[in-house]
């Protein structure tokens, strides 16, 4: 009986931990392994581009789309948008090494 009463609290605690951890692990139960990895990588790449003041709005939007797809449990879309976000985040950083126009 005491165990039964604890169940909701355990669930709430688990949700809390998941929310605190944030990022890709939040969607772990629903997403394929490649999708989880792609999303985690995209989040890292976008953060990196932001730290370099080199983030493109298109990379930012792609990550948002990937996170939305993750919430919906759509692994295919997560991989697609995450790859786009990662690629464009890296291009943004590479752009900081381009010569100036004059």
């Amino acid at each position: 009986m005491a165990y039964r009463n604890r169940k909701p609290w355990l669930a709430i605690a688990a949700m809390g931990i998941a929310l605190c951890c944030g990022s890709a692990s939040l969607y772990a139960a629903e997403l394929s392994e490649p999708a989880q990895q792609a999303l985690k990588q995209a989040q890292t790449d976008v953060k990196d581009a932001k730290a370099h003041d080199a983030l493109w709005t298109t990379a930012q939007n792609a990550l948002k789309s990937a996170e939305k797809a993750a919430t919906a449990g759509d692994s295919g879309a997560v991989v697609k948008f995450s790859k786009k976000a990662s690629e464009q985040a890296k291009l943004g950083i590479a752009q900081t090494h381009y010569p100036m126009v004059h």
Partner: protein
Amino acid sequence: MKYVSLLLALAGMLACSVVVAAASPEQDRQHLIEVYKKELPNVKFDDYVHGALALNKDALEQYQSIMEMPPWLDVLDKGKKLWETPFKNGKTYADCFPNGGKDVAGNYPQYDRKLKKVVTFDMALNLCREQNGEAPYDLSDVKTMGTLEAYARTLSDGMKMNIKVDGPGALAAYNKGRDLFYSRRGQLNFACATCHVDNAGKRVRVELLSPTIGQATHWPVFRGTGKLTTLQRRYQQCQKNVRAVPFKIGSEEYNDLEYFHSYMSNGLPLQASVWRK
């Protein structure tokens, strides 16, 4: 002999690169003037204050017609009220500036040696508030700072832009602003200069691209049907247009950019709170 020639050639290349790297702000400005003289031979120097309107007779006439009775005078009235309302200690903004705040905006942005950073005119207004015990305004809020600035800058209408870059700190800030202006950003891979130097006078879709010189003389502006827009808000819009995540209004990056950008308009008269497309 071969080695001597090689060394001389290398020394020459090094000297050339030093000259390019060490171009002074005034050399930068003169260079732009020369570029536009070639590219836009029909635009007189004083007409650069009109931006892209100087390139289109119809648009300039439309501007002149709107400016006869601007529909945003109520905003300037609100700004005047903000300017004249005393702080809790009885002082006003006019007490913070020489000449009661008249003919001062053209001296901004300026490099503050004590703060070791560029101070824009709206930052100076906020410093005035803080020195008098008031909380600073949000620099991105057009209802407070934007409205105050829209009036305060009109007190300098006619003053010639007079930006100074004195000392190593000021020059470093100017160069950072210059670098941002000439650096490619966003998915479209555009620098500010791509549009406003290399393609000034040409069209992007239906809009004519304005030259850099004169751009900083008339802010804030009322765009379209009267949307109050500050210079740094416009920087944000430009960066979004090239699909780059913009900097924050009041960021060091934009302040340095405004410093460089305003220097390029030196010698041209200010006229704030005008209409733009």
